[in-house]
């Protein structure tokens, strides 16, 4: 279907290139894939933006992953990631070119730059979308957890433009790298008079967070308040040992200090995609469930059969989480071949 449009750029979807931690965070590529699909609805182009110095490889990479066009601002003054400067440039560019949609990965950098840019552009912003769609009025429907995490809200930005959203890493699947993909790289001049940097970087060192384990683990065991107590929660570690699994937890459990913050599985924590997820005593607020939907197979244990986590499980065991945990430990010990 051919879309008619007088101002072509008005239909463009922009994706901010966040490349600093390229090999660990594929979020820009994931969003490009989704933007590609959305562009079928809007009829516009998918454009990536890259700020930095010596960043050509990323521009080419974005084209290989679905961008029609990459705007590049390459300048030694942009060598260091800067929320203030990049936001300033992004704001100016968006004001000039008026994209329809601007999507940003919800890395910590993205979570800082997106709200500032939205504010400067006087537009709305939906955080942490779990899906994005184009409705029959060509509007971007931003689907995100809301209302304390128990519900999902569909949000639109009726008047202001661009329509902005951030997306958690891992929400969408990137497209395969396509060396033959055609795209245009447009180099833009960086203005002489960049605003003075008000936040000075004294030191910056690459230091990957430890315990990446849970995000890569084949088996994850998560526990919630239903485990009853810190003492009983510890039983999950026994199970993890016999299964060679990682332990994760819900927000209330982390706040109750039953386990460290590193183990938080949820929107503000880790997004997991194990082959098997054992979920003990978790009712399932959306901030948690949104981060576990990629598990291939879910076993949930809860006394309450109506818990959200039970509804989304492959196997829902209506029983006391502690007793079942002990039972599985016993069964595995018996069944492991020497």
């Amino acid at each position: 279907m051919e879309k008619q449009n007088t101002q072509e750029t008005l239909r463009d979807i922009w994706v901010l290139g966040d490349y600093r931690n390229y090999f660990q965070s594929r979020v820009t590529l994931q969003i490009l894939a989704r933007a590609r699909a959305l562009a079928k609805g809007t009829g516009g182009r998918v454009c990536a933006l890259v700020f930095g110095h010596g960043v050509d490889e990323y521009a080419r990479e974005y084209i290989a992953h679905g961008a029609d066009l990459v705007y590049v601002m390459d300048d030694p003054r942009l060598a260091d990631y800067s929320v203030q400067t990049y936001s300033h440039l992004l704001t100016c560019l968006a004001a000039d070119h008026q994209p329809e949609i601007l999507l940003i990965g919800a890395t910590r950098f993205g979570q800082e730059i997106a709200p500032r840019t939205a504010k400067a552009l006087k537009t709305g912003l939906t955080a942490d979308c779990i899906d994005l769609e184009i409705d029959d009025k060509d509007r971007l429907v931003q689907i995100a957890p809301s209302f304390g995490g128990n519900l999902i809200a569909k949000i639109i930005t009726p008047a202001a433009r661009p329509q902005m959203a951030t997306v958690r890493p891992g929400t969408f699947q990137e497209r395969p790298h396509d060396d033959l993909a055609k795209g245009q790289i447009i180099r833009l001049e960086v203005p002489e008079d960049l605003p003075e940097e008000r936040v000075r970087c004294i030191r910056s060192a690459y230091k990957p967070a430890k315990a990446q384990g849970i995000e890569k683990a084949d088996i994850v065991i998560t526990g919630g308040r239903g485990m009853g107590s810190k003492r009983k929660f510890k039983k999950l570690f026994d199970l993890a040992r016999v299964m060679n699994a990682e332990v994760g937890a819900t927000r209330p459990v982390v706040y109750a200090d039953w386990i460290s913050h590193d183990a938080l599985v949820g929107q503000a924590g880790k997004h997991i995609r194990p082959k098997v997820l054992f979920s003990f005593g978790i009712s399932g607020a959306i901030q948690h469930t949104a981060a576990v939907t990629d598990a291939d197979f879910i076993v949930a244990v809860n006394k309450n059969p109506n818990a959200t986590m039970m509804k989304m499980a492959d196997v829902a065991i209506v029983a006391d989480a502690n007793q079942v945990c002990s039972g599985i430990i016993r069964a595995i010990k018996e069944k492991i071949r020497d």
Partner: protein
Amino acid sequence: MVSELPWNSKTGTLKRELAEGMMDPSSRQALEAAVRLAGSAGSDGVTITALSMGPPMAEEVLYQALSLGADRGVLLTDRRMAGADTYLTSFVLAAYIRKYAPDTDLVLCGSQTSDSETAQVGPQLACELDIPAIGWASDIRLSGRTVTVCRHVDDFMETLEMDLPGLITVDQGAFSPAYATLGGVQEAFDTTDAVRILDAAALGLDDGFNALKDSPTRIIDVYSPTTEKENRILKGAAKTVVDQLFKDYGKVISSAMGKDLKTK
């Protein structure tokens, strides 16, 4: 000190934690950071203000802030503020600071409130006030008019510096809050007028101001998440269900473990 306390515009009800009148844990860590900074050397005469926008009942949370070390509390409340998204929440908070506390040196926010986890109000408030901002602080040090912040973001350990006035959002878990003393609770109620309540007019907002209408984003639908799994239900004694689990799904589990499990 600013805490973001949004409420549910659709149903008019509040997030559970707020309904129970407890401070959002993330905002509480920001308050803890403020208290520690105020207690550090060379900070004589520092006044900590706990600022919140929310329904009238959020007043109680400000008394809690006093019990935890704030010197005064301010509640911005008005029907016309209901339903504000982060764009307008930061606008209203900034309106207060501009009008009543223009000499504020440092604004501290929780990085993500447990209600919406947007992490947007802090950065947007900094834009409104046109002051520098640093997110996700795990350590904050003040030296004269310079603040130095350590943070761990996207696998980078950074040390950043800015001059006051500025805004900092604190990382979760970095400033684990102290428990209030019961004497502190009593003291929160000993001072009269420690909590101030202001409406839209007091902030000088236009007569036409209406957060729900003026917010750039709009909620068009709300629904419960659903799934389409087999959803096999097992019930009974622990031993029975565990046996059943391994009988029917043992292969799935053993292949994920990468180990053979005896079938009998």
